[in-house]
């Protein structure tokens, strides 16, 4: 059961990452490679602030804002300095490596006995339900604090995605969505597309940094290399979500990204638990993603065949 809850919590934390990647890759049609840098930036900022005694909730918010700034830089490079999209992301990502090292002062900061958002949640659960309280679900017992952390993070994710969804239905949000779809038209309607790109990519990387900050607090340390491989995770979650949902509506794609993130983590945990050689982890992940994409297609083909024969 701990494994399940652990996988679910990771899935929820990485959903913020998936949402950020959704904003840049889908809404803005912008292949933004800053993700690995901003993820580690979130971790770096939160760790540096927490060990200096900062209150963790404000620190998490600050990590989000730092991510927004990093993304805004990428957008700025693209919009105003006309640097090509891939290159602008790479430039910012590379710079962030050194910046993160400077922020942390060292390559790795442990957060063992410090107060983090996670410990705050655990303490709430302890106070309300007792330290060794265990919940019993269908015959499995789980420590209440782990369950509490999961449920509250899930609630935070829900609220956050709802806020994001509503934002994209406002005037400015709708304009942003149109920029990725048809920038020329949007300019002819008076929207400053350059500014929209800066704000939008900023928002995307804010989400990613938020994910990094939560991850650092959950896993107990921040490492300058913690962003490596995160871009692939995020994109894979998006793709899985797409295969499940398959419609282009904003809200549904977001829900798909979140489900994709959780599902992906679960599948990987299953594979590990079945004694798969961890060296094969990356290959198995690729195969899993492939299966999830291909499966609905095959089902549809079969259905069409049946329809044609009938």
């Amino acid at each position, binding site marked *: 059961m701990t494994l399940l809850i652990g996988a679910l919590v990771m899935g929820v934390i990485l959903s913020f990452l998936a949402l950020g990647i959704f904003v840049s890759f889908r809404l803005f049609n912008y292949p933004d490679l800053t993700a690995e840098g901003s993820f580690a930036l979130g971790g770096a900022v939160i760790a540096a602030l927490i060990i200096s005694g900062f209150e963790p909730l404000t620190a998490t918010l600050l990590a989000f804002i730092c991510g927004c700034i990093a993304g805004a830089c990428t957008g700025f490079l693209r919009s105003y300095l006309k640097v090509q999209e891939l290159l602008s992301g790479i430039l910012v990502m590379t710079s962030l*490596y050194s910046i993160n090292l400077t922020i942390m002062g060292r390559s790795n900061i442990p*957060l*063992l006995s410090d107060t983090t958002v996670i410990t705050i949640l655990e303490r709430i659960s302890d106070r309300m339900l007792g330290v060794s309280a265990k919940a019993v679900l269908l015959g499995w017992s789980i420590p209440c604090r782990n369950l509490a952390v999961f449920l509250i993070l899930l609630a935070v994710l829900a609220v956050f995605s709802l806020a994001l969804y509503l934002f994209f239905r406002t005037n400015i949000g709708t304009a942003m969505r149109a920029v990725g779809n048809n920038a020329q038209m949007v300019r002819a309607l008076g929207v400053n597309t350059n500014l929209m790109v800066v704000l939008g990519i900023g928002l995307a990387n804010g989400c990613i940094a938020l994910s990094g900050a939560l991850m650092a607090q959950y896993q107990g340390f921040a490492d300058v290399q913690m962003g490596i491989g995160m871009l692939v995770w995020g994109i894979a979650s998006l793709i899985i979500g797409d295969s499940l949902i398959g419609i282009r509506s904003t809200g549904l794609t977001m829900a798909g990204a979140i489900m994709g993130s959780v599902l992906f983590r679960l599948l990987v945990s299953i594979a*590990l638990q079945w004694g798969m050689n961890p*060296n094969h982890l990356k290959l198995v992940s690729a195969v899993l993603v492939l299966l999830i994409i291909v499966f609905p297609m095959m089902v549809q083909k079969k259905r069409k065949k049946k329809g044609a024969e009938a």
Partner: protein
Amino acid sequence: MNDRKRLLLFVAKRLMLGVLLIALAGSVLLISDRRRELNQQWREKRATFYFIGYTDNPMTEDCLNGVIDGLNDAGWNRGREFDIVIHNAQGDMTALNGMIDNVVQEKPDILFTSATPTLQTVLKKISGIPVIFTNSADPIAAGAGKSFESHLSNVTGICTMSDFEGMVSLMKEIMPKARRIGTLFVPGEINSCIYKDQFEIAAEKGGLTLTAVPVNSSSEISVATQTLCSKEVDAICQVADNLTSASIAGIIQQARAEKVPLFAFLSETVKQGAVGAVARDYYQAGKDSAEMALRIMRGRRAADIPIRYVSRTKIILNTDAAEFFGIKIPPDVLRRADEVTGRQEGRIR
């Protein structure tokens, strides 16, 4: 309106599919967990050990072999008195997290770790299982406790901080005219930075200056080594972190091309062409860890076992390499060495 309804139905179906798949995956996880629990009850009373490493490198392998041989020496045999599950995260932090989660599920009798990142992840997540770190440069900085005596109650192990003063004195004996030594270091690995700082202090004490060149990934190794050679160092004494140990062959190649003598802190580098090494014996560290493990299995608490340095440091020399770099090793150094390879085939003490 009919269209609308159809659309909503379609959407609901797809969302349900997603939730269903998640529930399915979750139940598979739970069911295999249940199966394992039942299995555990039926299993014979064999001890279960886990060994988790961060990257695949010679240090980790030596530690692992040391652990197993140490257990064997005490009469514990694999498959009879104990089972051991071995995992390596191949440098992937997410995979490492997954493995640790798995260990929490499995509740082995003892968890052995290799490398500092592994130790750090474990420290956060594991509290009820005894943990023995087989190698770590600075376990106190990693968070294992306040001192070697006063540490976390379920964690203990072997500190494998390199013997920098030993290397400095070896250098002064073999290359008395040397003034500058160099090394690569990895800013992104905390133990590498610790090693570099400690080495600097030891070098200064011995009247030498240390030049350090940063490197971040295996693709940068050749260029970084060339840069180091161009800084007019008399010799390279490469500190032992995860990245440079895995890429040591590249460093040796460049050093030979530039004819800058190479020394190291790992024993295998000598066979590969380094002139000499002042090596913490990682194999011995594994054996020392096994000995700690046995004490715990026999009833001692991990809290009562202090962290210690590895019990053995070896000096290993390669006379062929020395000749290649134009160095003459003084005969009494040769006699004191633990291992000598090369045409003056050695006695292994």
